[in-house]
């Protein structure tokens, strides 16, 4: 929170007049309008794609729906700038709004698919059966009952998409769509007067928070849990079109990146040096490991508290989880730049500073993981162990740690991989001369050196695919 508060201080340092000037510029309104219209369009598209695909995977008799269940979630793992790179390198004309829209929709619809699929799995099938027995047709039941059951999940997913789009830097910068984040970056790079950048960063945070609050209001009551397997609906004649739709979605989301990457890799073998890629990968691993460890250290006490104590703190942590998604990397990066220059010049553009930025960005993710992990070791088990003659220490060693560790480790791994993919904060805060996979890819794509960028994109794609597989296994375990 501290860096953000400082961002606010920095914005108003030169008086409210300057802030007002920046806000009143037509450019600011333009940027906001561009970001918001992109967010609305992408969210709408994702809601349709996400709900349809979730329904197909969970409730229909689509052939091979288990495989589709995994493949349709995978795009979540593709960083938007990697997707942006692969699209722009095969279709250089696809830029601006259309390009950003296509890329962001294709990488973020799983944010809707995942919660909706989970809601469909846990919704009580008896409710639908009752509706049928009261004379509604299958189609009517879908609109009057099923959609209502999944509404909270769909809205939550939609919120994540909207926040993702608002804070996305990679795709919009590669697609040269002047959205808010890109505006901030340009303004920061272009002039020595950094107040406008700070003000714009704040506006972005306000937009994100407003979205979060609005979604909480609109969400409504969460559906009850059913104990039975969800009902399966026969697709009938719609089976083949549905299958074709699912296949083409996967071709667009996964096929394009992979094919494009392979093509550039084969095409441009001579233009990159393996040592460079390895050195960059090393950098990425080092800084991400540092960031993940720091995040874990900060998350442990909060997560344990949240898991063991009910009430206000837990709600706070849940809200912070959303706030975490709402904090754009560019704003956190910017806040730390200002904060670093002023208070810790020795740390500015060093690894610890970057690691700290990661910690600020991904703390909610790590807290969630710690909380889930610790929840696997409920206090009653510790009490049983104590009553069997083991002290606090032995109990921790023999009961709490073995039960909580897998979840916490998986969470840390997730943070590590998320750090490795992070672009905007890394761009702003990385030590001079140190490149990570993400920044190399971005720099090279900026100058249209697609062949040179391809190997970095390939490594990133592999790094990124790992948490998606993890995520699916975790969700699978809860079924």
């Amino acid at each position, binding site marked *: 929170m501290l860096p953000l508060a400082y961002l606010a201080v920095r914005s108003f340092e030169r008086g409210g007049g300057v802030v007002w000037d920046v806000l009143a510029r037509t450019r600011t309104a333009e940027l906001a309008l561009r970001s918001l219209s992109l967010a609305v369009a992408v969210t709408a598209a994702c809601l349709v794609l996400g709900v349809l695909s979730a329904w197909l995977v969970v409730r229909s008799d689509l052939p091979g729906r288990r495989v589709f269940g995994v493949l349709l979630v995978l795009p979540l793992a593709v960083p938007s700038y990697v997707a942006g790179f692969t699209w722009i390198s095969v279709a250089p004309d696809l830029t601006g709004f259309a390009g950003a829209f296509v890329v962001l929709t294709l990488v973020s619809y799983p944010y809707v698919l995942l919660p909706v699929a989970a809601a469909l799995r846990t919704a009580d099938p008896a409710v639908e059966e009752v509706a049928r027995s009261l004379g509604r047709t299958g189609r009517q039941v879908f609109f009057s009952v099923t959609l209502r059951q999944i509404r909270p999940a769909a809205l939550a997913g939609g919120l994540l998409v909207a926040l993702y789009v608002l804070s996305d830097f990679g795709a919009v910068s590669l697609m040269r769509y002047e959205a808010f984040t890109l505006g901030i970056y340009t303004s920061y790079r272009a002039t020595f007067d950094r107040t406008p950048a700070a003000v714009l960063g704040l506006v972005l945070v306000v937009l994100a928070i407003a979205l979060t609050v609005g979604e909480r209001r609109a969400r409504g009551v969460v559906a009850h849990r059913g104990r039975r397997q969800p009902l399966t609906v026969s697709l009938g004649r719609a089976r083949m079109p549905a299958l074709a739709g699912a296949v083409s979605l996967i071709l667009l989301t996964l096929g394009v990146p992979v094919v494009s990457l392979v093509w550039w890799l084969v095409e441009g073998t001579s233009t990159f040096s393996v040592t460079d890629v390895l050195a960059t990968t090393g950098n990425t691993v080092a800084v991400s490991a540092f960031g993940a460890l720091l995040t874990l250290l900060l998350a442990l006490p909060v997560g344990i508290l949240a898991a063991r104590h009910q009430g206000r703190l837990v709600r706070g942590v849940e809200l912070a989880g959303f706030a975490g998604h709402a904090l754009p990397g560019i704003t956190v990066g910017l806040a730390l730049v200002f904060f670093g220059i002023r208070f810790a010049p020795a740390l500015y553009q060093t690894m610890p500073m970057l690691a700290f930025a990661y910690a600020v960005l991904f703390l909610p993710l790590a807290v969630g993981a710690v909380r889930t992990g610790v929840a696997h070791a409920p206090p009653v088990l510790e*009490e*049983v162990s104590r*009553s*069997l*003659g*083991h002290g606090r220490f032995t109990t921790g060693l023999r009961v709490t740690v073995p039960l909580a560790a897998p979840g916490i480790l998986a969470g840390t791994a997730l943070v590590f991989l998320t750090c490795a993919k992070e672009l905007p904060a890394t761009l702003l805060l990385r030590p001079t001369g140190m490149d990570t996979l993400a920044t190399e890819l971005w720099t090279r794509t900026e100058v249209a050196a697609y062949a040179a960028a391809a190997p970095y994109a390939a490594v990133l794609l592999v790094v990124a695919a790992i948490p998606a597989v993890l995520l699916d296994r975790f969700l699978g375990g809860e079924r």
Partner: protein
Amino acid sequence: MSGLTVKRLVAGYGGDPVLREVDFEVPEGGLLAVLGPSGCGKTTLLRVLAGFHPVSSGEVWLGGKQLTAEVPPEQRGIGIVPQEGALFPHLTVAGNVGFGLRRGDRAARVEELLELVGLAGFGARMPGELSGGQAQRVALARALAPRPGVVLLDEPFSALDAGLREELRADVRATLKAAGATALLVTHDQEEALGIADHVVVLRDGAVAQFARPQTIYASPADLGVALFVGEAVTFAGVARSGLVSTPLGELRTSGDGPGTVLLRPEQLIIGAAGVPSAVDDVLFHGHDATVLLRLADGTQVRSRVQGKISVRAGDSVSVSVDGPALFFGDTP
């Protein structure tokens, strides 16, 4: 092993105490049930005894040793069987049972206990592969393994089906007796408490309403509240005078004097040739017995518990008489 004594125990969470001057004792090898509705302080009592919750005042003695606040849970020699078992999910059944044992004779003792709870050969299974009843047996074996001074069971049967519950109740009693263990079981189910224990403490609003044998609790409840809590009842308002009280069922023998409540158990209402006339409203068949809902001349409805073959049907006119004396609880002025 030896008995557990609780003297004037007070405990709470700040504000009004949850346990107020609780007194009882469990003799060595005895089985005590603590019976009370939810929120009466049962769970707090268990947590205090096990050392997970501080005592405000009062004493807990186990086997001639006082368990003060300085004695941590691991040194109390008190085993616990939590609700739904709470087996360690990462350990096998044998690992669970052996958790509180030293390495030396662990394997032999684990075998012995699994045999005792009827699960010999289950040692290699994981908790996830057990049924609810089996998990409870393992949890009991785990608690008994280190030969604790007393075992605390927290609503051990509440998550089970009715049939299984009865079977497991008998098994648990047999197991505890076979192990010579002193045990304390808390429950909100009066049938369970009366059926399993040697002695029963009825806990109400954190205070002991009655501490007696099950038969005594049922036949001579300390007050109307206990009487209504431990079983079905038929009640009338009435005025007792020289051992008699007048009710819609006629003059009944009773004790006490003055205005108050007359209480009969449904099994005391006998349908037969003699007695006051009444109409059968409905018959609720339970299998082993049945409840007959009777409408008396003045319009009040009473319940009669009938064993064996049921010969009446709704709409019949019957006569009903009362077997044995009625309980009488004078109004508190």
